[in-house]
C-alpha cells in the first residue's frame, strides 16, 4: 500500500491528544474525603470492569478517528499489477447505419460482431453504444449493464443517411474530453471511402482512443444508381419540360439498363441506356405530363445490385398556370419591353405571361388580375390609373418602376412618392459612366454583389429615398435600387432604364437573374427545387410567421412534428428518403422529395494504407484488428480513500455514541 500524499501522515501524531486526555482522565477524580472507611470494603465490581472496558474502547475509537483522518488525507492506494490485466477503460461501440449498410447483410453482420465484442467485455469495463450516420447518436450512456448494451445494439435500424467519419472523430473528441479512462473504439462499418471527410486531419482521434476496426466489406461491390435528375420544380408547359437523368455505375462492368420515368407511381416512359464500366450515362425524357398541382415523380433503373435503395431518384414538381404580368411603357419605347420580356422568359420559361401595354392605352386598365406590374420609364401616369395602381399595391400587389430619361422629368415618382432631385448623365461627365458601388446582398433582387461588376450606367435619376430600403447605390452614392412598402404590397424603384441606353445592364447575365429575382419577389413566389437530399434542412416558416402551426407528414405517412413543435419549429430535417408533405406557416402546401446522398452509392472501401494511418499503427490487418489482444497490464493505483472515509465515519459515530453513554453515566452518578 502506498500514499499519494504521505506528508499528511504527520497528522497521525495528533493521537497524542486523546492519549494525554485519557491518561489524565485515568488518574480518576480526586479522592473524596470521607469521615471513616470503617464500613467500606475495597472491591472490583463487575460494573467497574465494564466501565474500564468502555474507557479503553472509547480511547481506541478516538485513536482510530485520528489515524483514519490522517490516512484519508494521505490518499492511500494499493497498486494493482497482474499479468494480462488492463486498466479500466471505456469501450465505445459504433455501428455504421448509413445507407450503404443496407447492402447485403452488412448491418446484421455489424450487429452480430458488436454483440460478440460485448460478450468479451470485462465486467469492470464500461461500454457505450453509438450509431453513425450523418451525425453520431448515442443509444446508451457509458454503463456496465450488459443487457442494456445488448438491447441497444439489437435496436439499431438502417437509415438513409450519409456516414461521416469526420463526425465520428468529432464525437470521440467530445467523449474523450469528459472520460478519464482509456477508450477502446470499435467501429463496425463497411469503411467506405466516400465517408471520409475532405481533410484527413478531421478524422484524427484523440491519443487516449484506441481504434479497433471491424470491416464488413473486403472489396468494392458493384452498384448502379440514378445519380441525379435535372428537372424544374415548377412546370407550366408539361410538353416543353424535359427530364434529364444520369445513371452511374461504381465498380461495375458495362451494362445496359432500363430507365423508367414514373409520375405519381405510374410508369409513363421507359428508355434503354448503355452504361459504361464504372461510368455514367445520361437519359432524357422530353416531356413531363404531370397534372395540375403537386406530383410525385421518379426515375428508376432496373438493377439487381447489392444496394437497391439508390436505384430510384425521386423528384416533386408543381404544375400551375402562368402568372400574368403587366408591362406599361412609353409608346415610343420598344427596347425596354423587348429586353425585359426576353429576360423574364429566359429566367422562367412559361412561368409568366407578360402583357406589354403603352401607357396611353392603360388609362382604363384594372390591374387587379395581374401578379405584378412594371412601369418602365413612364413620363406621366393618368390619375385614374395611378389611383388603381395605388389601390392594387395596397391590397398586396407589387410594382417595379424604372426611371429612364422620360420619367426623370417628373417632380416626384408616382406611387413611390420620392421627389426627384435631378438626374445624372454620366456619359457627359468626366468618368463617362457610373458603376454599382454598394450592393446589399441580403436583398432578394441583388444576388451576389460581384455579379454587378462591369455594368455601366450612363444615366440615373436622383430620387429622395428617405424612409426606403436601399439595395443598390452607384459609385457616387446615387440610390439605384430602393423599395418602399405601401399597404400590403411593395413598390420597387430602379433609378435607371431597361432600354440598354441609359445603361448596358441588359447585356450582362445579371440582368436575367435580376429580373427573375425581382419578379418572384414581387409575386411572392420562390424558385422551387424538385428534390432534396436526406439530412438537409427545410425552412418551415419565415421570421414573421411565429406561432403559426405547420404540418409535416413523413414518407411513412406519420406526422413528423408534435403539436407543441408544430407551432414553433423553424426547420425540418429530412431524415428519411421519400416524399414529405408540408403545409407551411404561410398556408402554402408543398411536396419535398428526399433522396439519399449519392456518395453512399460508391461502395469502394478505404484503402488499407489509409486505414492503417487512421489507426495509427502499421502492418495490422483487419483480422488482427477484430481480434485485438488485450494490452499488457500496467501498474494502476486503486484508491483506498473511500474505504478510509467510510471507516472514519463508522469510528466517529461509534465514538459519539459510546462517549455519550459514558458521559451520561457520569452525570447520573455525580
Amino acid at each position: 500500500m502506498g500514499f499519494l500524499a504521505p506528508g499528511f501522515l504527520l497528522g497521525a501524531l495528533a493521537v497524542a491528544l486523546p492519549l494525554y486526555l485519557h491518561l489524565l482522565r485515568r488518574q480518576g477524580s480526586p479522592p473524596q474525603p470521607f469521615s471513616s472507611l470503617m464500613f467500606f470494603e475495597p472491591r472490583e465490581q463487575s460494573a467497574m470492569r465494564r466501565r474500564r472496558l468502555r474507557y479503553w474502547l472509547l480511547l481506541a475509537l478516538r485513536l482510530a478517528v485520528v489515524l483514519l483522518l490522517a490516512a484519508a488525507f494521505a490518499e492511500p492506494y494499493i497498486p494493482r499489477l497482474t499479468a494480462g490485466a488492463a486498466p479500466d477503460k471505456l469501450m465505445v461501440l459504433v455501428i455504421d447505419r448509413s445507407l450503404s449498410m443496407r447492402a447485403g447483410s452488412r448491418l446484421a453482420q455489424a450487429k452480430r460482431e458488436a454483440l460478440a465484442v460485448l460478450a468479451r467485455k470485462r465486467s469492470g469495463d464500461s461500454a457505450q453504444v453509438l450509431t453513425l450516420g450523418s451525425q453520431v447518436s448515442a443509444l446508451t450512456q457509458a454503463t456496465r449493464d450488459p443487457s442494456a448494451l445488448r438491447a441497444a445494439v439489437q435496436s439499431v435500424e438502417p437509415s438513409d443517411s450519409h456516414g461521416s467519419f469526420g463526425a465520428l472523430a468529432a464525437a470521440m473528441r467530445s467523449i474523450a474530453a469528459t472520460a478519464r479512462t482509456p477508450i477502446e473504439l470499435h467501429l463496425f462499418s463497411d469503411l467506405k471511402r466516400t465517408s471520409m471527410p475532405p481533410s484527413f486531419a478531421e478524422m484524427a482521434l484523440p491519443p487516449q482512443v484506441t481504434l479497433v476496426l471491424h470491416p464488413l466489406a473486403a472489396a468494392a461491390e458493384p452498384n448502379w444508381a440514378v445519380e441525379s435528375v435535372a428537372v424544374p420544380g415548377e412546370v407550366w408547359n408539361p410538353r416543353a419540360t424535359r427530364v434529364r437523368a444520369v445513371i452511374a455505375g461504381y465498380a461495375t462492368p458495362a451494362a445496359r439498363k432500363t430507365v423508367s420515368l414514373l409520375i405519381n407511381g405510374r410508369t409513363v416512359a421507359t428508355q434503354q441506356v448503355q452504361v459504361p464500366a464504372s461510368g455514367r450515362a445520361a437519359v432524357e425524357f422530353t416531356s413531363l405530363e404531370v397534372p395540375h398541382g403537386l406530383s410525385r415523380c421518379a426515375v428508376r433503373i432496373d438493377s439487381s445490385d447489392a444496394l437497391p435503395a439508390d436505384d430510384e431518384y425521386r423528384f416533386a414538381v408543381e404544375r400551375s398556370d402562368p402568372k400574368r404580368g403587366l408591362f406599361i411603357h412609353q409608346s415610343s419605347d420598344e427596347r425596354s419591353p423587348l429586353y425585359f420580356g426576353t429576360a423574364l422568359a429566359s429566367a422562367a420559361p412559361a412561368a409568366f405571361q407578360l402583357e406589354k401595354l403603352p401607357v396611353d392605352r392603360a388609362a382604363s386598365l384594372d390591374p387587379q388580375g395581374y401578379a405584378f406590374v412594371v412601369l418602365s420609364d413612364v413620363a406621366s401616369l393618368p390619375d385614374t390609373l395611378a389611383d388603381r395602381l395605388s389601390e392594387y399595391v395596397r391590397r398586396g400587389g407589387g410594382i417595379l418602376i424604372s426611371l429612364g430619361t422620360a420619367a426623370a422629368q417628373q417632380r416626384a415618382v408616382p406611387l413611390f412618392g420620392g421627389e426627384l432631385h435631378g438626374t445624372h448623365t454620366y456619359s457627359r461627365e468626366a468618368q463617362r459612366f457610373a458603376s454599382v458601388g454598394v450592393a446589399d446582398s441580403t436583398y432578394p433582387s441583388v444576388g451576389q454583389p460581384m455579379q454587378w461588376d462591369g455594368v455601366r450606367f450612363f444615366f440615373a435619376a436622383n430620387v429622395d429615398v428617405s424612409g426606403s430600403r436601399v439595395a443598390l447605390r452607384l459609385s457616387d452614392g446615387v440610390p439605384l435600387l430602393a423599395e418602399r412598402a405601401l399597404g400590403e404590397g411593395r413598390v420597387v424603384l430602379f433609378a435607371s432604364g431597361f432600354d440598354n441606353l441609359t445603361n448596358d445592364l441588359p447585356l450582362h447575365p445579371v440582368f436575367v437573374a435580376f429580373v427573375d429575382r425581382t419578379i418572384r419577389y414581387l409575386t411572392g413566389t420562390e424558385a422551387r427545387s424538385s428534390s432534396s437530399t436526406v439530412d438537409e434542412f427545410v425552412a418551415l416558416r419565415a421570421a414573421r410567421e411565429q406561432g403559426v402551426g405547420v404540418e409535416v407528414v413523413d414518407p411513412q405517412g406519420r406526422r413528423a412534428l408534435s403539436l407543441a413543435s408544430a407551432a414553433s419549429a423553424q426547420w425540418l430535417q429530412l431524415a428519411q428518403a421519400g416524399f414529405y408533405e408540408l403545409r407551411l406557416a404561410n398556408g402554402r402546401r408543398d411536396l419535398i422529395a428526399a433522396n439519399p446522398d449519392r456518395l453512399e452509392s460508391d461502395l469502394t472501401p478505404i484503402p488499407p494504407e489509409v486505414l492503417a494511418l487512421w489507426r495509427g499503427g502499421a502492418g495490422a490487418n483487419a483480422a488482427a484488428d477484430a481480434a485485438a489482444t488485450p494490452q499488457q497490464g500496467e501498474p494502476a493505483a486503486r484508491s483506498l480513500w473511500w474505504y478510509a472515509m467510510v471507516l472514519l465515519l463508522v469510528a466517529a459515530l461509534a465514538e459519539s455514541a459510546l462517549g455519550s453513554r459514558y458521559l451520561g453515566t457520569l452525570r447520573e452518578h455525580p
Partner: protein
Amino acid sequence: MPGDDLRHVDWNVFARTERAYLKRYRGETNSLLTVLLDASNSMAYASHPVTKMDYARFIAASLFYLAIHKQRDAAGLIVFDDEVRHSVRHSTRSGQLQRLLAALESAEPRARTRLEAPLEHFHGLLRRRGIVVVLSDFYASPQAIVRAIEPLRFRGNEVVLFHILDPAELHPRIGGSAVLEDLESATRFAVTAEYAEQEYRERITGHIEALKSGARGAGLAYQLLVTDQPLDAALREYLTLRRARN
C-alpha cells in the same frame, strides 16, 4: 446506701430514728457537667456547611450555657483525639463559660480517635459525680466504646452518648465508583455506588443499633444526632437527665 461517706451521716437523726440519713449540703444540689469532645479528624467531615465538629461545638456550648447560667452547675471540658488535647477544670467561678467557649473554639479536628485517652484523664478530673456527655462520631467497635465508657457509670455519673453523624455518612451518594480517603487514617480505596447504597447502609445501621443497645444495656444514655437536624433533641436529652437526677 452502701458506699456513701460515713462523714456525711446525720448521727442526730440516726439516734432519734435509728435510720441513717446523709447530710445534704446546698452545694450538692448543683450537678457537674463534663463534656468529652471528640476532636479527631473524622469530626471534620461534612456534606453540607456544618461539620460534625461545628455541630458538636454548638451542642457543647449550649450545654455549658444551660449548666452554668441556668442550673448553676459546674462545667468542664475535655477535648481529645488519640490523647487529651485540652481540658478545662470544672468551676462555677465567673468567666468559666468564656473559658469553656474559648476552649471549644480552639478545638480543631486532627489525628485519630481513641476513647481510652480521655477516660484516664477524666478519672483525675472528677471529684464529684455528675453528667458526662460524650460528643463523638464513635467510629469504633460498639463493644470497645461501651467497654471504655461504661466504667464512668459506676462512679455514679449519668453518661450520655451523643452520636454525631453527617447525613452523607448515613446515606452516602457515590457516582458510579469513586475513590474515598479516610480522614483519620488517610487510607484510600475505590468503592462503588452499589456497595454504598446497599452493604454500607446495612453496616452503618447495624453499628448504630449495636451501639445503642450496648449503651443502654450498660446504663448509658444514647442519642443519634444528625448534623442537618436542629440541636433541640440533644438539649432535651440533657435537660431530661438533669431533671431526673434532681
